[in-house]
């Protein structure tokens, strides 16, 4: 996972509250077997509307999403974060996030920053009056800067540390790899191994056929 300290990119005002994960990425896209390439699925139901914010030239390459309260509610699908990241977003700002979405974001390297609703309104105003305005998110200082405005955002210390170190869950666990190796040396011989494979005698399996 990439380390995150500051990021500057076009801000996208999403004037909607309660954006649930089904709106972020509809269920039909969950059948895919890939982990990337979900950019087309992001907000799929809204993308058909030409007036939707991401369909406007000035915002289309945005990377900082400024959304209404209760972002990311609904099903726990990790795909919601993948879709946002694949589209190019590095930061989502809102006054409230669903817990699971915020947890998933931290694990996948997306900054979910909590900004007071009046500051969100301020940012929306700037981004709407001057479409294409760049926003700078400073994770170290926990501030958002746009035009001549600087507002604070909140993120818990642990998630911030992980994002700044670029550590995903696996990276974190692997910091203790010596412990894992030491534990493995103590495992008893009776514990099973799948390899080399042991089998019963192989027997042909007859395909069943439809009954007419």
């Amino acid at each position: 996972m990439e380390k995150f300290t500051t990021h500057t990119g076009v801000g996208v005002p999403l004037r909607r509250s309660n954006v649930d994960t089904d709106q972020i990425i509809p269920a039909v896209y969950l059948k895919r077997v890939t982990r990337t390439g979900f950019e087309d699925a992001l907000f799929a139901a809204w993308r058909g509307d030409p007036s939707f914010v991401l369909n406007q030239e000035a915002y289309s390459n945005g990377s900082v999403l400024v959304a209404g309260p209760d972002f990311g509610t609904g099903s726990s699908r990790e795909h919601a974060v993948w879709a946002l990241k694949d589209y190019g977003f590095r930061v989502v700002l809102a006054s409230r996030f669903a817990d699971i979405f915020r947890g998933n974001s931290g694990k996948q390297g997306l900054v979910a920053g909590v900004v007071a609703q009046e500051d969100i309104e301020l940012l929306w105003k700037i981004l709407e009056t001057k479409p294409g305005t760049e926003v700078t998110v400073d994770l170290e200082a926990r501030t958002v800067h746009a035009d001549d405005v600087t507002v604070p955002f909140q993120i818990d210390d642990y998630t911030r540390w992980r994002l700044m170190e670029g550590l995903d869950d696996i990276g974190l666990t692997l910091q203790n790899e010596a412990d894992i190796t030491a534990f493995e040396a103590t495992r008893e011989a009776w514990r099973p191994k799948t390899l080399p494979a042991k089998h019963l005698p192989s027997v042909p399996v007859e395909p069943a056929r439809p009954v007419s």
Partner: protein
Amino acid sequence: MAGTLAEKVWEAHLVRRGADGSPDLLYIDLHLVHEVTSPQAFEGLRLAGRQVRRPDLTIATEDHNTPTLDIDLPIADLTSRTQIDTLRNNAREFGVRIHSLGDADQGIVHQVGPQLGLTMPGLTVVCGDSHTSTHGAFGALAFGIGTSEVEHVLATQTLPLSPFKTMAITVNGQLPPGTTSKDIILAVIAKIGTGGGQGYVLEYRGEAIRNLSMEARMTVCNMSIEAGARAGMIAPDETTFEYLKGRPHAPEGADWDAAVEYWKTLRSDDDAEFDAEVVLEASDLEPFVTWGTNPGQGLPLSASVPVPEEIADANERVAAERALEYMGLEGGTPLRDVKVDTVFIGSCTNGRIEDLRSVAKVIQGRKKADDVRVLVVPASARVRIQAEAEGLDVIFKEFGAEWRNAGCSMCLGMNPDQLAPGERSASTSNRNFEGRQGKGGRTHLVSPLVAAATAVRGTLSSVSDLDLPGHVDLTTFDGTPLTPLEAPSFV
């Protein structure tokens, strides 16, 4: 310090204890993989340039998407085929053992582990599937995980976890004739509710549990998740050891002795404290069926469909109304009058050889009811082979049932075996959610014995509705046309 079974297994797998509130790091002994929840996990490894840390503790099989007919032909559904091809490619790339369609050890992941002797007491077992709780029947701590956790286990063979609470479920006495372990677990879920086990590992104990065969115990643990629990466990005993001994991956020689000695210590201490306790009397049990759209909406077969107006709790009343509308049922209808279109015998809950034997015993020499479609789907190819060696397939076919290849089949609407909208089934599987067996399909969860009797009569029935001689013993099949069990003596 006195401990419960779950705590003992937990302690034995601590790689690192979490400091102040952060999770413990637990070692995983066995990781089962299937095609639905693994593709993105493998891709995550690839993107990060990571390897599978312990391919020798990992095994994959194909089950959810596999058809149960024409398994030698290409899979018609594109999504299904892609998922399966992806699993095969990933297994090859990362060096993971796989049992593919057509292989004698292909089948539902929760049957494959036990039948190969990979599932044993005292292990931690995980799989990207909620019914991983099945393996708890051996005294293993076994639970389902999500895709990012699958990736975590593949990469590190560990999982960061916060301790669970423990609940003892004691089932005293003896099961009445015609009831099975499925009726025990359906009654437990109806009693504690679908959220009653949330955050808990359930430990089943008591005389009725001790008397169950290994496979019947798996049925109980399998549905722990339907009570909201993380896992279900049963302390290992002679029944467990006997089931395991001689299986392909069971320990041998001195390893076996060492293992059994350790396994015998895997029981909750007499003075161990559980966070919650539930007690059931087995002698009170009757064949249980569900009438609604979650597994907690169940009643004894002798009861009638509930009348919503009579339900005191407002939330439950609304839920019941909704469920009855979906199920197309009138409150007050005797459950025995409910007519079904399809009987499904299979799944990781009840698709094992003992289940098939008990069904065969009930239907032998009879014909299925007209207009009822009967599907018999073994949990694994090995179960199918064993059933055929015992002549069960002939009994099923003469009865008028369809005898299929192994897989999840009609347990979930992901492969070609599905209910049509409005079609009603009596099903030995584990979930009766709206649309679970196909869009608009209506599911009644039942035991294999109830499924068999229902297939004979066409309405929800128990074996007591048939003139069967005596008590149906689940574990043996003594019908005459069977060839005696020869090697392999197990599946």
